[in-house]
């Protein structure tokens, strides 16, 4: 027995020796290391399962014009995976029941201040994702904001992947008060355009004649060149009719689409701006008296946004002041963003354009329309659940979702929880059967005729779902 055991021990020892000597060769060691790494990454993938988020029973306003009744939206890892009816809910999904509510894309504020805390351009190192202004911004429905020259998401409790785009605008000045400035800017455009023509020409010819010299970039303004190449957006801050006209002509001459902030007298030259493909950032309630010394039209107009829109100018609406401001003139701060769009409607802007003015158009102006601004498959799951029409002054944002994560819940934050508190259970389906509330939604949306066909079927489903819910509630009651 003893000798046997010794044998075994020696065997084990020799095995151990072999084992020790294997990693001795560098090759074997490296190999093992590689395998380990692979394993690790595989494990990590396993550790982090897909995060699913679902909104169901909602009236989804996608922001592209379509409205889906009693529909669902499924998001996977913060991106919209599917929108439609009767979709499969993944087992681990976080489900938000938006019965009786409307879902809109998260709002895009062209500019704001304070929502991200006291930030500098180093967003990842300075944003305060716990500050109360951010909560109020999310309560307004804002999920993306322009800040400085960047577009940043309001990601609560996180500083990861905040910035959607940086270096959006090249800001130019064009003012009647500074004629030399106008002249020099025009010269910059002339030389940049000339260079660009030469360069494009050279690009064509160099394929045949490889020894051809590249045109010299001397004296070409790189910022202007970037604008002409479409790499950056030219932004002007202008309100006077003359200036707007000048910008429109400059844009038409050199073929770029200017963004014009302010644009108070834009309505007087709307056709020219439209022809230039201009995009305007307006505040519907801007007030400016007409210069009575001039015969021509001038001053502000409540119809500004509407007229610009009719002339083909993409209109984004911003609030009077950029920060959350609970003092001063009430209702003009960033929290009144949808209200500001309402005033544009008051001036004749169609409702869909008004919604676009704080979602898709503003996203387009910031150059982030590929990620935010509307609810489409593949885009970020940034949405708001509103109890009424978003543009109704009584509407409250009930939930705000950024990257598929609920970051604002009206009932959980102290700011508006006490105003018209949300009932814990979704609206009771029995009432619907009685026809008490049924006429209401129809009366609310007379415009959405084309959807009628789909609606009927949905309505049936809704009732079916409703009955189920009713059953659940009864159980709870019991």
């Amino acid at each position, binding site marked *: 027995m003893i000798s046997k055991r010794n044998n075994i021990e020696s065997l084990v020892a020799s095995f151990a020796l072999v084992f020790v000597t294997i990693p001795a060769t560098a090759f074997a060691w490296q190999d093992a290391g590689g395998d380990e790494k692979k394993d690790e990454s595989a494990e990590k993938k396993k550790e982090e399962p897909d995060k699913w988020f679902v909104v169901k029973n909602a009236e989804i306003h996608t922001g592209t014009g379509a409205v889906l009744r009693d529909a669902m939206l499924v998001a996977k890892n913060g991106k919209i995976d599917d929108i439609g009816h009767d979709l499969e809910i993944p087992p681990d999904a976080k489900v938000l029941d938006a019965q009786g509510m409307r879902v809109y894309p998260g709002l895009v504020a062209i500019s704001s201040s304070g929502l991200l805390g006291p930030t500098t351009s180093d967003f990842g190192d300075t944003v305060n994702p716990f*500050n109360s202004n951010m909560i109020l911004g999310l309560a307004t429905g804002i999920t993306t904001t322009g800040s400085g020259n960047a577009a940043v998401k309001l990601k609560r409790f996180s500083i990861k992947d905040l910035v959607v785009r940086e270096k959006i605008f090249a800001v130019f000045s064009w003012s009647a008060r500074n004629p030399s400035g106008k002249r020099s800017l025009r010269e910059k455009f002339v030389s940049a355009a000339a260079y660009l023509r030469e360069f494009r020409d050279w690009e064509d010819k160099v394929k045949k004649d490889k020894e051809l010299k590249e045109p010299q970039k001397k004296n070409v303004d790189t910022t202007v060149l970037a604008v002409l190449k479409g790499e950056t957006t030219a932004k002007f801050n202008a309100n006077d009719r003359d200036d707007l006209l000048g910008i429109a002509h400059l844009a038409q001459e050199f073929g770029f689409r200017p963004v014009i902030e302010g644009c108070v007298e834009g309505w007087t030259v709307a056709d020219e701006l439209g022809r230039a493909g201009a995009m305007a950032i307006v505040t519907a309630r801007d007030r400016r008296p007409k210069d009575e010394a001039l015969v021509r039209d001038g001053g502000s107009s409540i119809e500004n946004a509407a007229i610009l829109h009719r002339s083909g100018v993409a209109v984004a609406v911003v609030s009077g002041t950029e920060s959350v401001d609970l003092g001063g003139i009430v209702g003009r701060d960033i929290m009144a963003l949808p209200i500001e769009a309402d005033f544009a409607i008051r001036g004749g802007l169609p409702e869909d354009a008004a919604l676009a003015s704080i979602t898709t158009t503003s996203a387009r102006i910031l150059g982030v329309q590929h990620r935010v601004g509307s609810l489409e498959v593949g885009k970020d799951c940034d949405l708001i659940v509103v109890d009424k029409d978003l543009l109704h002054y009584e509407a409250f944002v009930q939930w705000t979702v950024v990257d598929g994560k609920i970051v604002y819940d009206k009932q959980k934050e102290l700011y508006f929880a006490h105003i018209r508190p949300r009932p814990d259970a979704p609206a009771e389906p029995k009432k619907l059967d009685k026809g008490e509330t049924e006429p209401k939604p129809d009366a609310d949306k007379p415009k959405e005729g084309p959807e009628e066909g789909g609606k009927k079927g949905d309505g049936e489903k809704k009732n079916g779902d409703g009955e189920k819910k009713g059953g659940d509630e009864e159980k709870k009651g019991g």
Partner: protein
Amino acid sequence: MMLASLLIPLLPLPLGGDTKPGPTPNLLAIRVGKAETIAKGTIEHAVILVENGKIVTIGEDLPIERGIPVLDRPSWVVMPGLVNAYSRIGLDSEGGDDSAAEVKASAELYAQAKDFQEIVKYGVTTLGLYPAGNGVPGQACAVRPLGKTKEEMLLADACYLKIIARASPSAKKLIQDGFKKADEYAEKEKKAREKFDKDKKGKKEDKKEEKKEEPKPAPGAAQEPAAAEDPKPEEKKDDGFVPPEPEPKAKPWVDLRAGRLRGLVSINSAAEFLHYVDAIGKETFSWDVRLVVQRESDVFYVLDKKTYDLDFDGIGDKKCRVVMEPVLSVTPGTMRNRNLAMELAKAGAKIVFIPRNDTLMDAKAWLANVGEIVGANLDRSIALRAVTLEPAELLGVEKRVGSLEKGKDANLIFFSGDPLEPTSKLEAVMLDGRFVHGEVKL
């Protein structure tokens, strides 16, 4: 006259003054109504035997040998002397704005500073002194507040490295730069190691033991990648290798990584905690938090990962110590009180209380303020621990002070009643077995 002069030496203790008690016998038994031992709960009718400045034994109703002088105070409550782990009492110089992690607060220590004599009267028998300044101002030391010289006062040095975390690129860079210095040192150490191994190998080859030595460099080579990441295993190998001395500026960061030094990270808000966590990235070293409790503190957001579904670990998840003032805060934008200390403790953090302000006045009101937090539902045992053993552990002097246990320094403070009651009076303070405050007659 003759009689009087004969009688005086017979008295066990000369009549002590109000503040300056006379000499305490070397061996003394103390019998009190209650002892808060911190380490082992509350002992009723406690007897403590003190000899040569140390606690020899402590227990309930222990028999006292005849001949040992006895201090009998059945109405008193005794607890370990208070430990203020985060103070600048007795220091006065201003620090700079620069990162100076190598600076030590002990360099500023002046034994004759009056504040030290004063602070003892409020029951503070151990102080953790930190260096002033912004950024990474340096390392703290632990002192006993009475001593003729600096050396006599110093209990421990390089207790923790103070790091001020801010939501700014410069503050975050300061931390990252520090660890870059440690990286440079690790590189240097690795090279020294390689050279050492090579030399050693060469020597052994000289001895003509080639065959036996062959397998040896193999495990060495296998270990090297691991060693580069963590210098610890290298030190454990007792093969005569002496790692090179890091540069003074790099040393604190090398020590942090090696576990020889703790970090104490000062934050004001949740955002500063988040940005600090972001700044250290995957760096693993032990650190605690100095939370400056502001009235509308939003730190409740980062207590744990679960509540707000954070993408990083909260303060409670890290199970670190939180050095904080005993004050209530309010939920931002409201008048609703919040007991952050209680919330932190529930989330898993360990609480270390310091006086509300670093002044003698607030040192006097310290325990009463802690009492208020206990009144607002913080567990009493956590509160008592938070002024004694927990700060002692933060300073790394828990083997000497912070609780009433056999073998520890006899730092005792005596109250007329519950120490956390504002009506209780601090009757006497004993530091290293000697009464330093209070009128004590045996």
